[in-house]
C-alpha cells in the first residue's frame, strides 16, 4: 500500500499513528501539496492511500479505520463514527479557517474554537478516552486535527484540564510520539506551515432553511 502525502500534513499524522498501532506498514510517497493524486477529484486532497489493487482512499479518517480494522483494532461503536463525522465537519470547518491565519502569522480569534474544545473536555471528564476507556480511531483523528494548535502554542489547552492531560498522555504513547517525529522531523510547528496553508477549506454548514409546505 502506498500513501501519497505532502510534507508536514497533520492528517497524514493520523494515518501514521494508525499504521503503527495496527502494525501494517505503508510506503510513504511524498508529493507536492498541489498535486492531484486521485484522478477524478478536481482539488488536491492529501493524504491518499492507494491499495495494492489500485483503489484510492482519499479520506484520512477512513484510512485510519481501514488500517485499524485490518488488525481487528477498529471499533464499530456508533460513537466512534459520530466523533469522526464531527471531526471532519464541525471541527474542520473551524480549524481549516483558523489554522492558516494562525500559521500565516495573523491573529486568529480563539473564541471560535472554544465550543469544540469544550465538547472534547466535557466528554473526557467522565472517561479516559473519547469513547469510554479504550483508544479508538476517534482519539487518533481528533488528536491529529488538534496537533497543529498544540505545535504552535503548547499552552493552548491550558484552560481545559481533561483535554490537556488526554493530549499529553497520547503524546507520550510510542505510536503517537514516533509518528509526530516522523511528520515534524523534530522541527515543531514550522514543518507544518506549508501543508496547512495549502489544505482545502471545509465550509461552514449553510443555514438549513425549513421549507414551508
Amino acid at each position: 500500500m502506498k500513501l501519497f502525502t505532502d510534507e508536514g500534513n497533520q492528517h497524514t499524522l493520523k494515518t501514521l499513528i494508525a499504521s503503527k498501532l495496527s502494525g501494517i506498514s505503508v510506503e510513504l510517497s511524498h508529493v507536492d501539496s498541489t498535486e492531484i493524486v486521485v484522478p477524478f477529484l478536481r482539488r488536491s486532497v492529501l493524504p491518499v492511500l492507494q491499495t495494492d489493487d489500485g483503489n484510492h482512499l482519499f479520506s484520512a479518517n477512513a484510512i485510519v479505520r481501514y488500517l485499524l480494522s485490518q488488525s481487528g483494532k477498529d471499533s464499530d461503536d456508533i460513537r466512534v463514527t459520530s466523533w469522526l463525522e464531527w471531526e471532519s465537519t464541525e471541527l474542520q470547518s473551524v480549524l481549516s479557517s483558523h489554522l492558516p491565519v494562525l500559521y500565516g502569522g495573523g491573529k486568529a480569534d480563539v473564541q471560535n474554537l472554544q465550543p469544540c474544545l469544550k465538547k472534547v473536555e466535557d466528554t473526557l471528564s467522565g472517561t479516559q478516552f473519547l469513547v469510554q476507556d479504550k483508544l479508538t480511531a476517534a482519539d487518533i483523528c481528533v488528536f491529529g486535527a488538534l496537533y497543529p494548535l498544540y505545535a504552535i502554542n503548547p499552552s493552548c489547552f491550558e484552560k481545559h484540564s481533561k483535554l490537556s492531560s488526554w493530549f499529553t498522555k497520547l503524546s507520550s504513547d510510542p505510536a503517537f510520539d514516533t509518528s509526530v517525529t516522523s511528520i515534524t522531523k523534530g522541527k515543531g510547528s514550522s514543518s507544518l506551515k506549508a501543508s496547512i496553508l495549502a489544505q482545502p477549506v471545509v465550509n461552514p454548514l449553510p443555514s438549513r432553511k425549513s421549507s414551508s409546505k
Partner: protein
Amino acid sequence: MKPSEVENEVTALAKYLQVKPCKCTVDKKSGVTQLKHNGQTVCGLASIATFLVQSSGQTSLYGGPCHLSQAQIQQWLEYRVAIVDRCLGERDVALVLKELNAFLQHRVYFVGSSLSLADLLLYFGLYATINQLTFQEKEKHIHLSRWFNNIQRQVNLDEFYPQLPFSLNHLYHGVSAH
C-alpha cells in the same frame, strides 16, 4: 446547494431499511442532526444513517465483511456531509457534479458492485440539485445521471423523492463529448 430536508431523509431511509420510523431533531444552534434512541444520542447525518443500517442488520449496505468496502463507504459518507452539504455557491456545486460524474464513468455503484449506504446518502443529498438541472445539464453529466436514474428506480421511494425525468435519447449535440 440547498440542504435537503434532513428529517425527510432519515424517515425515507428508515422506510427503505424497514426499521421502526424514528424521529430526529436538528440542533438550532449548530445545525447538527440528532437521533435519540433507547437513551442514546447519535449526532450527525452520516452516523445516524450508519446506526440505522446497523439496527436493520442489512450489513451488505455497509460493505459486508470487506474492510476496504467499509472504508470506501465511510469516505463517501464523509464526502456527502463535508463537501456536498457544504457547497456555498454554484461553483462548489459545479465542482461536485463534475467530480462525481468523472468517478461514475466506469461504475454502476459508488462502492463495489451493489447498492450501499454511500449510494443512498448521495442520492438523497443530490436530489434537490439534480431536480433543478435542465435536460441539457443532465446530459452533460451523463454518468451521474445514469447512476441517479438507476438508484431512484431501485430504491423506489416515490413518496419521499418523486422520480425525476431523464431522457433516454441524446437530445443535444456535443454536450456529452469527452
